């Protein structure tokens, strides 16, 4: 397998709040181009803290995070647990936001915006307002916004946790199709073992109190992955392995 380009490196990163609450301890992670990494763990394991550290919203107490090559704000796309759309703006204006904040004019990137909407299956909703959309559709807009600039890395913080299971499965499939199509690199935070196995090629299992990485395991199933991967014996094997690691990690505190 060829060595893929390194994007980001976390070295022994720790974050302590209020001088005493250890949210994350000694996390190391190398992200390479094309990776789909899941951070899997219970509440309070520091997975969201890790994302906030990577997106530079907070700064590490110890260790360091380095981007390879030149790094600017356009390198990152973000999807939160809520769709986080601007209610006063149309779907197209919402997706246009990352461009707008980089000083682009709508006319110059209209094709990219439309293309991103087409890719998430909302091509005909460009002029709709967020309130007119269902929860799943709003999340699609949010995903379109995160990838419209083709960032080097997309961070997703439990994006489908608030959706019903049927919608979630559908969005899981669509997300993988998108990944195959534009070859994006993703760090995906989730507390669902099934979701992490189905989506990612690397699962970082984390534990709480203090938040830390306990295990990293690879899912060797090649992309593109079809729906029937969910029912295969390999899939069952991986979920067993990931659940085992998770229980082991939680057992220490339970």
């Amino acid at each position, binding site marked *: 397998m060829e060595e893929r380009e390194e994007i980001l490196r976390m070295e022994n990163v720790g974050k302590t709040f209020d001088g005493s609450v250890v949210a994350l301890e000694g996390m190391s992670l190398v992200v390479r181009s094309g990776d789909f990494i899941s951070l899997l763990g219970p509440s309070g394991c520091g997975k969201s803290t890790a994302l906030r550290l990577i997106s530079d*919203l907070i700064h590490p107490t110890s260790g360091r995070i380095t981007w390879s090559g030149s790094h600017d*704000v356009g390198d990152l796309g*973000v999807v*939160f647990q*809520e769709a*986080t759309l*601007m209610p*006063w703006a149309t779907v197209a204006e919402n997706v246009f936001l990352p461009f707008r*904040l980089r000083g682009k004019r709508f006319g110059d990137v209209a094709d990219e915006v439309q293309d991103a909407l087409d890719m998430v299956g909302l091509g005909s909703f460009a002029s709709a307002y967020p*309130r007119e959309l269902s929860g799943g559709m709003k999340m699609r807009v949010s995903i379109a916004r995160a990838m419209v600039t083709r960032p080097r890395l997309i961070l997703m913080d439990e994006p489908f946790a608030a959706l019903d299971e049927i919608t979630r499965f559908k969005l899981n499939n669509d997300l993988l199709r998108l990944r195959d199509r534009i070859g994006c690199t993703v760090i995906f935070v989730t507390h669902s073992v099934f979701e992490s196995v189905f989506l990612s090629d690397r699962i970082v299992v984390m534990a709480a109190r203090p938040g830390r990485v306990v295990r990293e395991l690879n899912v060797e199933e090649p992309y593109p992955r079809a729906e029937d991967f969910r029912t295969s014996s390999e899939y069952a094997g991986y979920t067993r392995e990931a659940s085992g690691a998770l229980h082991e990690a939680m057992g220490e505190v339970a």
Partner: protein
Amino acid sequence: MSFALPAEMPDTGKVDADELKRRQRARFERVGKWLLPILMLALTLYAWDRIVVLNDIPHYILPGPGLVWETLIKDWGTLSGSLLVTVQITLMALAVAVIGGVGLAILFTQSRIVEMSFFPYAVILQVTPVVAIAPLIFIYVENRMVGLLLCAWIVAFFPVLSNTTLGLNSADHNLRDLFRIYGATRWQRLRHLQLPSALPYFLGGLRIAGGLALIGAVVAEFVAGTGGRASGLAFRIQEAGYQLNIPRMFAGLVLIAATGVVIYAALSFLSYMLLRKWHESALKREG
């Protein structure tokens, strides 16, 4: 009770009792919203008229509604000029309140130092009754018009300031993070995140300020007193009081009340037009 179904709701034969009740209620809401207040007004006017006529109350104590209406028409020449003056002061004060309130609110959110330094004084200005400040203002401010404007502004600007400040600070925190991640400048954050978030709050404050500007303008004129041709409705009421011209006092009162209602309605409409596409307050509930 029977009624025709609206065109967009074809009778599929599956309208159950609940649905019928719901439609009936909706229809009652629609009609009652207008009909009941009008009915109430008519009843009040009728009762007022009867009381005056049956008890032979002299018009210099309580004029009937008919006489008030006649006076309104007869004195329209004087009253309309005064109405114009009052409306002018009110609208100018409202405009200055919006500029000052929004400007100060933006300044507050841009700099904590400014906010911490000035906010207490904005509150003091607000809680001090304008009647108490007005006499001083008219001592120090030569121009009567400017004095009136200043009084009306003091009363009107605070709701704009406090609501807009609240609105600017209540942008969704995830959106805030998103703007930071995308490296938004201070100006971009203000223009594309904070100002739109503040709009519903601002419009709420504006509706209150509209009424207060009118109150401020009227109260200030009562204090300012001195007449002349450029006098507003408050002075006309005062003047009519000295002349025991009670019908004219009522006519002036009616005009002030009507002005207040029109201002409120206009601002409500503005608010609806600006928010109807996206904000909860302007959306009709479905189902």
